[in-house]
């Protein structure tokens, strides 16, 4: 053990919250799949969680300053991986997102998210002015813009979008000035209709479906409608674990992954949703608290990068389940089934622990 770090210094409250969320997720994955040909998924998820925990412990031991020193190389690895996936990646669900690594399939964009968190944290921590200058802002945007374009090519709009709040939160904490923020927001508003033209047909459909679901209630709007039916029919106490008809009979789309909260809302009701969302709120606030207690700005930016990504995941996924946002394919952290996504969150928490362990180091 390094000097000044002990097992007590891990954030056990944060971990307990994370495991509570994992527990709810495993339970609902079991409920959603036990009676189908997908039965046994929850044990796979448990394995991912276990592996994630181990990786988290390992990552927390390597001083984050050492990691951040390697940012340029990590950035290069990310770009190479993104280009590689476009050429040799495995296609699933019509998108090239997976690279065969270590006998499994790695969703490259999860790895890229982690690397961009590190790269941006280093970039912002090196800005030494009280206020963020325009030149630095543009550099940060370019740093993220390149991988975003590559991820959009896969195409994976969801992950590409996740990187934007990362820049936004980083820039805000680095002293973004209103005189810069407002024109950017205005420009973004203008760019939305232009950007719409660059979307793939299925992406456009998701947006139009979201805006006018009644136009096509049984076609593209089907997923959102079925999700809302599942949520709404759950009522206050829910139909009971394993009793949700929308879930058990397969009306809820990918009920063990992206729409797991719809399945949970149906079976455990508003009460269950309340517990789950309060757990997420606690997790996120605890992350911010850790950022506030970081030893230096680099650690703070690292933790807040993790916070921004996780918060955005929660917001977009939950809003989609209740029809507030279009379908983007962003999973719910720690709850949705998925190896790469689960490993990413644990590795991200590893970075947080890493900073926390070194908060008293001089």
């Amino acid at each position: 053990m390094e000097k000044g770090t002990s097992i007590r210094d891990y954030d056990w409250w944060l971990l307990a919250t994370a495991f509570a969320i994992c527990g709810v997720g495993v339970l609902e994955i079991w409920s959603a799949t036990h009676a189908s040909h997908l039965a046994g998924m929850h044990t796979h998820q448990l394995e991912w969680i276990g592996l994630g925990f181990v990786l988290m412990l390992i990552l927390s031991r390597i001083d984050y300053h050492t990691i951040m020193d390697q940012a340029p190389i990590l950035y290069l690895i990310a770009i190479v991986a993104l280009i590689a996936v476009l050429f040799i990646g495995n296609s699933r669900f019509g998108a090239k997102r997976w690279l065969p690594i270590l006998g499994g399939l790695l969703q490259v964009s999860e790895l890229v998210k982690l690397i961009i968190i590190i790269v941006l944290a280093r970039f912002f921590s090196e800005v030494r002015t009280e206020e963020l200058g325009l030149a630095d802002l543009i550099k940060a945007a370019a740093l993220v813009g390149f991988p975003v374009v590559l991820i959009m090519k896969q195409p994976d709009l969801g992950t590409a979008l996740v990187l934007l709040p990362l820049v936004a939160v980083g820039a805000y904490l680095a002293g973004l000035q209103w005189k810069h923020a407002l024109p950017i927001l205005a420009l973004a508003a203008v760019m939305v209709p232009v950007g719409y033209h660059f979307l793939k047909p299925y992406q456009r459909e998701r947006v139009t479906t979201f805006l006018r679901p009644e136009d096509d209630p049984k076609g593209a709007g089907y997923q959102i409608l079925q999700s809302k039916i599942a949520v709404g029919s759950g009522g206050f106490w829910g139909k009971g674990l394993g009793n949700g008809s929308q879930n058990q009979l397969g009306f809820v789309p990918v009920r063990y992954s992206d729409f797991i909260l719809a399945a949970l809302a149906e079976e455990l009701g508003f009460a269950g949703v309340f517990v789950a969302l309060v757990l997420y709120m606690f997790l996120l606030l605890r992350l911010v608290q850790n950022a506030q207690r970081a030893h230096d700005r680099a650690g703070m930016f690292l933790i807040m990068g993790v916070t921004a990504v996780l918060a955005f995941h929660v917001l977009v996924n939950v809003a989609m389940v209740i029809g507030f946002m279009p379908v983007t394919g962003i999973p719910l952290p720690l709850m949705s089934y998925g190896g790469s996504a689960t490993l990413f969150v644990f590795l991200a928490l590893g970075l947080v622990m890493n900073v926390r362990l070194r908060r008293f180091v001089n």
Partner: protein
Amino acid sequence: MNDKRLPTERLAVVSYVIVGVIALLLLGFWRLQINDSDRYAQMAERNRVRSIPIIAPRGSMLDREGRVLVDNYPSFSVLLLRDAPDQVEKLLPQIADGLGMTLEEVKQQIDAMRSMPKFQPVVIKPEASPSDIAFIESHRSDIPILEMLMVHRRRYPHGDMLANAIGYVGEVSAEQVEASDSSLKPGDIVGKAGLERQYNSTLKGTDGLRRVIVNSVGKEVGRLEQQDALPGKPIQLTIDYDLQAIAEADFANKEGALVAMDARTGEVLAMVSRPTFDPKDFAIRISPAEWAHLNTDPETPLLNRAIQAQLAPGSVFKIVMATAMLESKAIPADYTVTCAGHANFYGRTFHCDHAHGEVDLHKGIVASCDIFFYNVGKLLGIDRISEYATGLGLGRRTGIDLQGEEPGLVPSEAWVQRVYHHKWYPGSTISVAIGQGAVMVTPIQLARMVAAVANGGTLIPPHLLKSDTGLKSDSFPISDDTVRQVTDGMWGVVNEPDGTTSGLIKLQNVDFSGKTGTAQVESFDLQNKLGKKLKENGWFVGLAPRRDPEIVVAALVQAGGWGSTSAAPIVRDVVKAYYDKKNGIKIQEFTTAKEGHAKMVPTSVAAPALAETQPSR
């Protein structure tokens, strides 16, 4: 700037944003799960449960002795389940191919059910053939959206017998569904005409529901409790199959109508209308072409002539004239006229078939002398004729339990004033006096009128439902003396040597009477439409016994010529069959309507003989 200095304020702002966003999301869940919970619960239930109707069999129709006139046979319809619209879209071409239909036909069937909720299954092929059933069974796994629906279709064991009275069934119309207070749904089979329509609520059962749990691809994974179908109730008719069969056989290749009634109760024993239609054509789903043909056919096969043909009664009307003459006492009972074969009224010459010489009321009826009744009509005047004709039930509906009965018409001064805005021409009375001119009646009115004259003025209520006892009769009292004189005249028509039937329809041991009619067809429009010159309509209304009759039969043979040769023998056959049955003589089994009536006449028929009683003059 210090590497250790953190943006504490901005970090705090991030915390508030997190709390705010979570609160907002919880609000969203509250709205769905608490405010709109019931609505979504219903939608979830609709997803989960697929309801397949169990069709209730329709009640059968029996004759007065319980013999089946209409019942059902089981059949299958092909049902398309629409829970998964993308699947429907994808599989439709394959389904159309497998069922031997074009894609357009299938889409039309689905389109016809537009008003039904989107998730309800629709019938895309009403009558599944064995190969259709094989197709569905062998594609259960890859085409899970087809289902077979057991239905009951109408079976008519006797072909087109009684078709116009029975009516037909068909798919309920959009208007009927709307008017039904949701007791009917699109695709339901209901009575559209005749008794099927009149007694639809009795005949129609209540469909049940088979409720199964299905998954998101429409595969059945469980069952819920089943709601059994309640079969419709059978109805027993007053029709006597034996009499009906004989009447139908007599009408083979003829056009016209017949009504036989129990003259005491109004029970309709037989009702024929020709030409008719084959109700079987309606049992499945009538093709638009066939339907158009039935509706535009100038011979109007859908018209129930027994209650809907409004025609001049011809000389049968002389029964009304005789009654009016005696009852009104406007003319002495011993009034006589000399018939020279023609006479002049109001500057126009009117003819009679022969010169009858000296004619009194009895001879006037027996020989059907027009000159006698022209004079009676002139003396009575149109309003007195109208009073008695209306009183005896002509020109108004009898109230039989069938839809669409026509009223006919009895002209009067007030009527001509109302409709034509001029005064009644006295010359018109002369035509009316022999049942021509504006007067129009239906066969059932004539039957009831003759029965009323013979029973002293009781207008019996015609009906087809056996359990309809205790119906109220109308009354138009007629004195015994009048009844005696008029019925003796009708006896003479059948039994006296100079009667218009020339003694050809006499029945042994039956007090059979009646009156012939031979009416000119005045509608030139109809003649032009048919492209042929129409012969006169032949009428005969017969009854037995002559006073307080048990049975009355009115027959109309359109373009049949003389009533005595066209309609009278048919009435004779029916009355004879009635008495043979009553006396326990077996009536030969009815075989097919195509064979002539000769075969139908019981072997006991003897050569016409003089009746044992002579009428008193």
